[in-house]
């Protein structure tokens, strides 16, 4: 593996203060970015700057601070719309994260459209956040949930996909990238197939946004959700993209300030237009500002360069890990983003995780909020190493050495 001449990972690392940290006497090797990415100084400082010098509640204010804060807030809406190539800025709704976004779609579009005779389709590799909101609604509305199964390598089983779409589902809910297996789904093709049978499509993009350029117009999905904290931004903030025609038809979800046109006890309360209709209460203002800074940061480094860097790391890591006796990679789909899940024969994943932590190496172990994958594979979980823009070949080497050492102790 050679690092592309123009990609200076050391310069990038210097922007992330946490990467200088020591854990248990070893330099931190942070391989848990799929759970949550670290934040560059520009993101941290943008939030600090906002809170220290610009904070005010937004909307409806006539004073200068309120007007400036509102403009800062709304400009990030435009930035996100541009970043994912939405047709209009009004198609971007701020949420508290991916989970919140999916629940919003389930609680509004889903509650209004899904009934007893209906079917929706999920895939086996969905995160709990793209399963449970539908299950909760289904206990009330009694529609059926069908599941697209996986091939051995963790890619979607094409015949299962076709079989489920043949049921004429009303909705297809699918991840862009699997957080456990790394599988990249061809959401553009799946959307086209789903639309051809009349289904509405929601794409869970939380693991895609840090690794890929997203173009919702090209994908043509109806909804797309993501979290700020997975894309080098703050926690507690995320966005939902929705086609404007759908947003206009959807009933409100949370009620409160700003989402209304007029509130009355005597006459019917009326609602604001999208996206404001879906943004009740004081939003996470510093989070929005930080998310804007995160998008700027991603663009300044270049998503293509990050993706190439991560790809070379993942290839190198896969090769090195496979040299370990008893090693089994879980998820080997041809199209794969920067997550490696693995198991070593006869060894519990949490033991490996604990020992790696002793060496300062942060990986995640367990079911990664994707229990249905574990049930199907009959495994208790995996060890997952995930890579980001700041990951290095030396960190891969530390991981491989650490796993080797752990395996020796544990056998």
């Amino acid at each position, binding site marked *: 593996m050679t690092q592309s001449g123009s990609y200076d990972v050391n310069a990038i690392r210097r922007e992330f203060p946490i990467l200088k940290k020591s854990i248990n006497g070893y330099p931190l090797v942070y391989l848990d970015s799929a759970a949550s990415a670290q934040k560059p100084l520009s993101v941290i400082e943008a939030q600090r700057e906002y809170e220290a010098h610009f904070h005010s509640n937004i909307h409806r204010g006539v004073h200068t601070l309120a007007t400036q804060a509102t403009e800062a807030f709304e400009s990030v809406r435009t930035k996100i719309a541009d970043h994912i190539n939405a047709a209009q800025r009004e198609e971007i709704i701020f949420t508290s994260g991916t989970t919140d976004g999916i629940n919003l779609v389930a609680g509004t579009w889903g509650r209004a459209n899904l009934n007893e005779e209906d079917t929706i389709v999920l895939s086996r590799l969905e995160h709990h956040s793209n399963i449970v909101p539908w299950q909760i609604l289904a206990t009330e509305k009694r529609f059926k949930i069908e599941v697209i199964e996986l091939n051995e390598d963790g890619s979607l089983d094409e015949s299962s996909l076709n079989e489920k779409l043949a049921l004429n589902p009303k909705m297809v809910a699918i991840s862009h990238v699997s957080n456990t297996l790394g599988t990249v789904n061809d959401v553009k093709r799946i959307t086209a197939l789903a639309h051809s049978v009349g289904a509405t499509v929601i794409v869970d993009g939380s693991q895609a946004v840090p690794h890929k350029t997203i173009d919702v117009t090209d994908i043509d999905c109806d909804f797309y959700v993501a979290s700020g904290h997975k894309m080098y931004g703050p926690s507690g903030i995320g966005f939902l993209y929705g086609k404007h025609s759908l947003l206009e038809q959807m009933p409100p979800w949370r009620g409160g300030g700003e989402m209304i046109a007029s509130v009355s006890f005597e006459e019917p309360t009326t609602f604001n237009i999208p996206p404001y209709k879906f943004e009740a209460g004081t939003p996470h203002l510093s989070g929005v500002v930080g998310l804007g800074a995160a998008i700027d940061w991603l663009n300044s480094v270049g998503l293509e360069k990050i993706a190439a860097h991560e790809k070379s790391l993942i290839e190198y890591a896969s090769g090195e890990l496979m040299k370990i006796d008893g090693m089994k990679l879980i998820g080997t789909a041809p199209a794969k983003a920067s997550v490696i899940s693995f198991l070593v024969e006869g060894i519990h994943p949490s*033991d490996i995780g604990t020992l790696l932590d002793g060496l300062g190496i942060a990986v995640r172990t367990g079911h990664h909020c994707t229990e249905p994958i574990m049930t199907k594979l009959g495994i208790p979980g995996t060890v997952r190493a995930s890579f980001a823009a700041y990951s290095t070949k030396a960190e891969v080497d530390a991981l491989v050495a650490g796993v080797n050492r752990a395996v020796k102790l544990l056998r």
Partner: protein
Amino acid sequence: MNTDTRLELRQREIIEEFEMFSDWMEKYEHIIEIGKELDPISEEHKVDDNLIKGCQSRVWLHAELNSEGIVIFTADSDAIITKGLVALMIRVLSDAEPLEIAKTELHFLEAIGLNSHLSPTRSNGLLSMVKQMKMYGIAFSAR
């Protein structure tokens, strides 16, 4: 903290045993050894009813009151480090009177620097296991 009970003495013994290890990996190595040496739980007791479910590793715990009024714990885990920690708990709390078990404050994990494994935010089920052991102590002492 009781300074004179025999369960306290058992804890001190473990603390001393771990004093010779200078780094994490050595400590874990020792825990793994202890785990490997844990007397197996009999198959009839390794059942779902005795399962303490953590998010990641599972622990089976069985308790028996023998004819002399002494509690005997047997246990297992599918993760070896958890099993080693379980074995340490058993070294302290098994083969003891119900009331002793109920009353003992477990502090040895903190002393050997492994307290984080007992934190409520850990997903290994160890804290639930300790609670369960104490419950057995209380239940048996009520007999």
